[in-house]
């Protein structure tokens, strides 16, 4: 990270020197202008979303872009009429349970693949790795049937099992890369001191892997919170649905009540924005690490 930071500082300085020598300040302001225009285009739909959610219902169509008066009625309506609290809670517990499950499975196995020696290790590793990127679109039919035969169809536990099993291998891969950077001597020394294998993992290795864990946690939180196809297929009972399929259902229901629809959408992205803002640095580091190590 430090190496990255110093390089990050050096490169623009060098470029700045080049720019000065070529007497090209106009070019630089133009670039800044282009970037700001792109940012404005990118963020515009989201600003529109929030603005629409705080408009009085009768001024949505044909009014000016900026609302002349502000009301939070739509939030109250969205919350009450859709059982928003219940679905929000469903999403939250399913997401947190998935994160916990993935962290447990991925860190245990990531550690074993990185640091322990046992027969067939590479065979199992390659097996997990080969299907790391298996798309949920391709697996939805057999998985539906699989859950049905296990009696887990239409249960939140079934959905949870799908989430953990489909995401754990990728996180295992990240954690393994992380554990590999730790020195072997550390583990050997602990063994000599008489610590059991699990104790070594739990007391010594895991605390050192905190940055890796943070990445896995954020990544998994966002992915699970946003997941749609499994949630929409596995669960039929309305009370058990997490947010995404419910939001999808709102479209037909509130076809003309845009403030309520927009209020619902806005409330659903609050957690991901919070997580993103709160842990932005680890998230970006993890995303790029994950992508680059691929």
């Amino acid at each position, binding site marked *: 990270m430090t190496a990255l930071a110093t*390089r990050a500082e*050096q*490169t623009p300085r*060098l470029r700045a020197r080049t720019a000065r020598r070529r007497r090209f300040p106009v070019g*630089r302001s133009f*670039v*800044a202008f*282009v*970037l*700001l225009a792109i940012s404005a285009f*990118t963020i515009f739909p*989201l600003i529109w979303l929030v603005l629409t959610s705080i408009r009085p219902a009768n001024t949505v169509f044909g009014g000016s872009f900026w609302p002349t008066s502000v009301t939070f009625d739509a939030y109250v309506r969205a919350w009450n009429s859709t059982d928003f609290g219940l679905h929000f809670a469903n999403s939250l517990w399913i997401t947190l349970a998935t994160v916990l499950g993935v962290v447990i*499975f991925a860190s*245990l196995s990531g*550690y*074993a693949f990185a640091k322990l*020696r046992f027969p067939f290790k590479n065979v199992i590793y390659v097996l*997990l790795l080969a299907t790391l*990127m*298996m*798309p*949920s*679109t*391709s*697996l*939805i*039919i*057999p*998985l*539906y*049937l*699989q859950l049905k035969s296990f009696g887990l169809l239409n249960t939140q536990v079934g959905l949870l099992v*799908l989430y*953990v099993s489909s995401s*754990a*291998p990728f996180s295992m891969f990240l954690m393994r890369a992380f554990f590999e950077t730790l020195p072997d*001597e550390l583990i*050997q*020394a602990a*063994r*000599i001191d008489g610590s*059991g*294998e*699990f104790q070594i*993992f739990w007391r010594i290795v895991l605390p050192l892997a905190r940055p890796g864990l943070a990445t896995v946690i954020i990544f998994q939180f966002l992915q699970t919170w946003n997941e*749609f*196809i499994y949630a929409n297929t596995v669960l039929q009972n309305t009370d058990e649905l997490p947010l*995404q*399929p419910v*939001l*999808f259902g709102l*479209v037909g229901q509130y076809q003309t009540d845009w403030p309520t*629809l*927009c209020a619902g959408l806005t409330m659903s*992205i609050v957690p991901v*924005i919070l997580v993103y803002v709160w842990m932005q640095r680890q998230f970006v580091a993890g995303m*790029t690490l994950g*992508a*680059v190590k*691929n």
Partner: protein
Amino acid sequence: MSTSSTLRAGVRLRSRSGASLWKLQRSERVAGYGFVVPITVLFVLFVGWPIVFAVYLSFTRWSGFGSPTVIGVDNYTRMFSDPVAATAFWNTIVFALVTTLLQTVIPLIIAVLLSNVWRGLSVVVRTLLFIPGIISFVVSGVLWKLIYDPNLGTLNNLLKSIGLGAWQQHWLSDPALVMPSILVVSLWGAVGMNMLIFFAGIQGVDPTYYEAAEVDGASRWQQFWYVTVPSLRVVTAIVISLNLMNGFKVFDLIYVMTAGGPNHASEVFGTYLYSLAFGSTAGSIPQLGYGSAFSVIVMLLCGVAVLVQIVLSRRASR
């Protein structure tokens, strides 16, 4: 734990007798399996077996009741005479290729521009561009559906207010415009993430390369083309492969925005197999076999995307 105690421990390990060393290794093996077995069991049950099962189902006809009837490759040959399958094929391939092209080139350009501007501005722009990438496809799909609404949508209103009323379109219900309209939403969501990957890659380029290029009198454009682009080959291979894969398996965004309509104009493999298996209309008989054949094709296409990455990275490191 200090270095000296670690060293001492290492010395002690070597001086141990063979028997207790073997015991140590055995406990390591036991722990290794203990740690790896849970994830492997989950994997076999909910990833490995479903892959095998999908391949098997693709050679059968099955409505989900009774047992599947094996019909050989009929599902695959049927695709050639199914006009919806043809639409889904072209839509999927074109969507994947065009999104890959745009979602690689545009983020690369933005990342290069970003590394040339004042640092504060760069942080702000990076943060803003990334936000659409953390929002679910359901939310972005619904949001853009409202924006594209032909009568009340912001896009048409905006065009009218700036005097381009003639450009107003039925963005999602015109068969010729529906795929490009969805493509814009995909691009909107993907630029930030891919830009960050490129940006991190650019930060990792050895600055002495640029110094050397400058000494040799290379222009900014030449520096970009002969230093930045070749240094980013591995990163570019990853971005291309990820985008290809996301394009081949696209489902959420299209399902939410159009469900493959109007009249299958935006059908892709993902939406088509879903409607075959889980039914877009009530009362239709599930076609799990035919649907699974498309599942297998999506798997194969994603395999191709992985191969593309391997080939491109190999060539880059040569």
